[in-house]
């Protein structure tokens, strides 16, 4: 599955589904500065310029090719209370979980305690 061909408006974050678990993961900067995946949308790395967006795109291509994730693409975000929030409601759902089940998904903190361990 190729990354979305057209880059969205910036700022943007990179999200994908983890290959093994299917969970939504977000690209973030690891301890050494290299990109890793986090399950916590609050930690998603925000690309504010073309250079940062290109880095996310390159990471997406690499991670798709090396079979770590599927359906990776950039999503345009607004910054609300210091955190990136997708502008489109579809991707906002991905950062939360089903709206009829607040007890499930990221909105319930599922998987987020493992945030910094990568995907």
């Amino acid at each position: 599955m190729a990354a979305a061909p057209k880059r969205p408006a910036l700022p943007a974050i990179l999200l994908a589904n983890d290959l093994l678990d299917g969970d939504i993961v977000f690209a973030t900067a690891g301890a050494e500065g290299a990109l890793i995946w986090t399950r916590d949308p609050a930690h998603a790395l925000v690309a504010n310029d073309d250079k940062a967006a290109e880095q996310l795109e390159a990471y997406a291509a690499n991670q798709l090719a090396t079979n770590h994730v599927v359906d990776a693409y950039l999503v345009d975000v607004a910054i609300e209370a210091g955190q990136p929030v997708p502008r489109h409601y579809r991707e906002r759902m991905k950062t939360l979980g089903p709206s009829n089940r607040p007890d499930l998904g990221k909105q319930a903190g599922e998987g987020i305690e493992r945030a910094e361990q990568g995907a």
Partner: protein
Amino acid sequence: MYRYDEFDERFVRERVAQFRDQVARRLDGSLTEDEFKPLRLKNGVYLQLHAYMLRIAVPYGTLNSRQLRQLALIGEKYDRGYGHFTTRTNLQYNWPKLRDIPDILDLLADVEMHCIQTSGNCIRNVTADHFAGVAQDEIEDPRPTAELIRQWSSLHPEFSYLPRKFKIAVTGAEHDRAVIKAHDIGLRLRRHPDTHEICFEVSVGGGLGRTPMIGKVVRDYLPKADLLAYLEAVMRVYNLEGRRDNKYKARVKILVHEIGVEEFTRRVEEEFARLDGPSVNADPAEVARIAAYFAPPSYEVLPETSRVLEATKAANPAFARWVETNTTPHKAPGYTALTISLKPIGEAPGDATSEQMRLVADLAEQYSHDELRVTHAQNLVLPHLRQRDLFTIWQKLGEAGLASANIGLITDIIACPGLDYCALATARSIPIAQAIQRRFADDERQRLIGELNIKISGCINACGHHHIGHIGILGLEKRGIESYQITLGGEATENATIGEILGPGLAAEDVPDAIGRIVDVYLAERQGNESFIESVRRLGLAPFKAAFQEVANAVA
């Protein structure tokens, strides 16, 4: 119920082993996603919004208690303790992990179940009347036919790469509860007026989605023995001539529409004449072997009406209302078919927890000859209950939140998972259903309104059957927000009709008001015992449109 023979057993087990190997190769990088995707889809594995989704086939909606208990176990062990029954009478799990799916498939194979052909461009799970074998208006049980088609179509080498998916439904009753006219092929068992022989009426080219069509009859009276040869002829014409250049025009309904039903029928008949019928049609001994599995259970000899039931109804009005709304007359005296509503107010339509599945499995085992059904309206049926057991069953269901008395009423809403789960959805469905349910939660008001089918889809693919709802709701995206288009006058029965759009799309929060206004027009204008859809037919769209427009104008 049908039981697997050694061939069924072997082919399902082999398929699990193949998929286990395919998953391993995907995980070690030997298969790319592009290579793996068609393989996982053929095994019912989708990638949805938050996770993978696994769709399990429930052939013609029939389950036994052991199978439902296994589904409950899978839900608990590998998912989040619940599953979602679909309009194709299947069950979907919303949160399985890819690494666990081979183990889940093994557990399914242990109870003669699988996920084969629940996705992809092949013949999908065959559905049937959920009151098969028990309905009073039935001419013949459709399940032996559905099982025969299941066996014929499973891994059929010629029909594994069709232009697009293909859905078949069968009914053996006068009243169509299986929506056969909205299927690629709809089969209706009927008696020939002269010979009195039981035949099939064959309809082709029905379907919903972005181009909704009602199926057209291509054969009025097909002899039963010729079924597979005739189906093969239809499939061959479609496989050869169905469009492959555009997936939106690839369903057989488009072919029937483009060349016309007469020409389509001519080509099918030509192919049918060319086929060597005896080599394609099922061996009568095999047909009889299959039919024997669906022989009626041994019913007790009981009076037509149970005095115990009458007494408990008289003493308990809430129970009496539930019996009136949720039971259907049965062929056997003293028995009834019970529809268990999976539409409690404020819950996701069609969802059942593992605890609820276990309870229903226990009830099926104890009271219903170990059999239950899934309906296309996303409810469950206990088909063989003694009337006198209903009160006990009602009490047990009530403790599990499963005693809603709303079958066929305005809160018995069909809804697809929508954007709360589905990667294809353009808007949410479940919260719309919940808001309408809350608006019409009052039991008395629901009963006053009477039969009214609301059907909601979260995208144009129409899994929620919105086109054939008395009131249909389609969720779309309009300038970056969810917008809901309302249709009126659809019907899913033998009088299948596509509903018409009432006006501009509405925001989610305005939908319950719009439904309220439509219902108010009906209540004000209805004559005598006229049902909602009968009023719509008599009055036409105009008065409903006018009321709807007031809501649309108020928010514009």
